[in-house]
């Protein structure tokens, strides 16, 4: 008994303490940036990432401090699972001058008046050097709120030895992507040559009922099939469309070819021939050497699509040191800084000049496909065309409910539930939540 009361209590206490911060009392003053003197100390919040990433960031900061002597940087790192909560629970006035943020959280931060537009602080050169896909993620209501050093992309990683032994020809450009039907045939052929008879890894270990499902598993399938998650801020009529029902049912039909990958080693151990995952597994997968190939995700009718977007940098809404912060952001986006950072974590660079000379993603390099995909940016889902490839996740402050419901629906469909039913229920839940919040419009 006491346990239940305590648990219930914990829920409501946590709820209250959080609403207290983001709730009615704080109001929404909107951005009030002061340019300041352009010198002094700026405070920076960032995610405590991989050790190599943190070292790279510290190195970039020390380079910045030695390159000039007027601006000092005070860096504070937060554990990654607490970071978004920390920003969410800070009042706009408590936020630092410069902060890291995850792509899909930006719209919510802007909605809460926590971010400042970068137009007058960051140089025009820096803004125009951003690749289109990262720019789409960092733009809310036509204003740019962030700049990114790195991006993220998806691909099918292939084991060339297994593909060759099954006699499978694979595409190397987004235009040549397998259609969904062709892909089913490929899986049939591959099933004969892999040890367990299950040649595909869909990264189930990340869990479909979460962000992986929305961004990287259901997302590309929905977009490639010509559907969207939202249309005019409504999910009914978009998420539960016939196109989405068809695409996600096709995805679920591949379950019989799919290794559950509970140990995360299906691809490196050679149990599967194809792995549907992001660029971040490259450091592990590169052990395959020249047998590692990257293949575009299957085309469900409207061209292959990948999700894009990841952590980027922006300015706190009430910074008193906008000019100095802008200079720091300019420095972060310089070719040298981007090179140091993306070398450390293997991510595709998000600036045009750095991407073109990248050792991994540049022309003729091993992951050129991922680089190409990112330079063919669609922008947000309503602007998808046949030829663009990388899509930005829905930019709305209601993203938490969208991602929760889409992931949940995908998991349900994948485990055999009727797709129309699952998607309609998800759409109704999203629309209800949007209606409760007046569509998350300002």
């Amino acid at each position, binding site marked *: 008994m006491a346990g*239940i009361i305590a*648990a219930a209590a914990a829920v409501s206490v946590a709820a209250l303490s959080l*609403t207290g911060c983001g709730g009615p009392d704080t109001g929404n003053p909107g951005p009030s940036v002061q340019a300041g003197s352009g010198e002094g100390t700026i405070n920076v919040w960032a995610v405590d990432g991989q050790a190599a990433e943190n070292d790279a960031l510290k190195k970039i900061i020390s380079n910045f401090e030695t390159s000039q002597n007027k601006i000092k940087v005070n860096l504070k790192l937060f554990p990654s699972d607490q970071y978004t909560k920390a920003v969410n629970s800070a009042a706009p006035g408590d936020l630092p001058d410069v902060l890291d943020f995850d792509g899909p959280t930006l719209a919510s931060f802007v909605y809460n008046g926590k971010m400042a537009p970068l137009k007058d602080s960051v140089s025009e050169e820096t803004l125009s050097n951003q690749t289109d896909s990262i720019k789409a993620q960092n733009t809310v209501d036509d204003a740019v709120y962030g700049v990114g050093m790195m991006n993220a992309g998806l691909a099918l990683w292939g084991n060339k030895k297994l593909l060759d032994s099954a006699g499978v020809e694979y595409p190397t450009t987004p235009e040549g992507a397998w259609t969904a039907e062709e892909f089913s045939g490929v899986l049939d052929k591959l099933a004969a040559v892999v040890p367990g008879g299950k040649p595909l890894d869909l990264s189930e270990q990340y869990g479909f*009922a979460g962000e992986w499902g929305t961004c990287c598993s259901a997302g590309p399938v929905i977009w490639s099939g010509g559907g969207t998650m939202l249309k005019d801020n409504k999910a009914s009529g978009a998420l539960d469309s016939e196109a989405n029902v068809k695409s996600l049912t096709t995805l679920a039909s591949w379950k019989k070819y799919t290794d*559950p990958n509970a*140990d995360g080693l299906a691809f490196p151990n050679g149990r599967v021939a194809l792995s549907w995952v992001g660029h971040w597994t490259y450091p592990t997968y590169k052990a395959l050497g020249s047998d590692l190939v990257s293949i575009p995700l299957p085309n469900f009718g409207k061209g292959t699509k990948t999700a894009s977007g990841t952590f980027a940098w922006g300015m706190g809404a009430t910074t008193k040191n906008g000019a100095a912060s802008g200079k720091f952001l300019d420095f972060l986006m310089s070719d040298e800084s981007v090179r140091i950072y993306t070398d450390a974590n293997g991510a595709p660079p998000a600036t045009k000049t750095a991407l073109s000379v990248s050792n991994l993603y540049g022309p003729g390099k091993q992951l050129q496909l991922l680089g190409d995909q990112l330079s063919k940016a669609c922008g947000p889902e309503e602007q998808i065309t046949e030829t663009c490839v990388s899509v930005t996740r829905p930019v709305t402050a209601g993203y938490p409910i969208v991602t*929760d419901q889409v992931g949940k629906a995908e998991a349900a469909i994948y*485990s055999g539930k009727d797709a129309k039913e699952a998607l309609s229920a998800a759409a109704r839940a999203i629309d*209800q939540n949007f209606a409760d919040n007046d569509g998350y419009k300002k």
Partner: protein
Amino acid sequence: MTTQTQKIPAPAVAPAKRQSSAILTGHRFAGPLFASPALIGLAIFLVAPFVLAVVLSFYRVQLNSPRPARFIGFEQYTRLFTDPDLSAAFGQALLNNFTFALIVVPVQTVLALGLAVLVNRKLRGMVVFRTFIFMPLVFPLALTAVIWRLIYSRGDEGLLNALLGLFSGGALSSHDWLGSPSTALGSIIVMSIWQSVSFQMIIVLAALQSVPTELYEAAALDRANKWQQFINVTVPGIRNTLIFVALITTIFSFRLFDQVYLLSRSGSVDRGSTETVMTQIINTGFDNNNVGQAAAMTVIFMLIITMIAIIQRAAVRQRGGV
């Protein structure tokens, strides 16, 4: 509780300080004073949050929203019971909780008793045996969940499927234990019992060892066989402990959270098939940021649990138990 604590300190302190009336008035406050730390704790951590949950459930509150909370009366409750999606989901979660409790409480209590009787024998090496049975409880749940995911993994890669395939000659070898809605909850029940039965066993074991051996000797003189001894001496001797064990197992069953969260959120499992009220509350409140709705669910759940506790206590009292 307050009246008791008032009585106890009074005679102990009174004789020495009889002179001072100022201190005498202090006596009147001694009881509440001694009780206050516990009472304040209860108020802050139990009463206040519950009252706040009740208040929140009448509002439309979204986390991370600049919009002020809006008073909406009973809307959150009517939605929970009339909205076809929400009521189905909430009903399913409640059903999962009850199914879990209905299976786990009797099975786990009987199993704990059986194991306790087993390890209560005075054989050589029993300490090692006991240690092994107790081990699942020592490992963190997050760790055991990883192992159980490998056990339940679908295809012939899963340990359970591999074992079944071996015994059935390959006929049963590819069931998706967690992914298939018909076995998902059952899988969680099995893992849950495996994980926590040893805790109940230890409690029963302690009770078993406190049953006087003379009773067994007397029963043996009356030519009671082992089974009769068990029914007529052992079970009555540890009756109160068994009731206690059944009670706490019921409580654990209703606040079921970790197992579900760890086993089914990872992987490609249909959440609806294993969702419990606790996972649903967390999901609604912190993934969907819909605090008002989550608060309403908390209040209803609390009422249901209170009812169960009252019924259970009444039933136990009637039979002269604790």
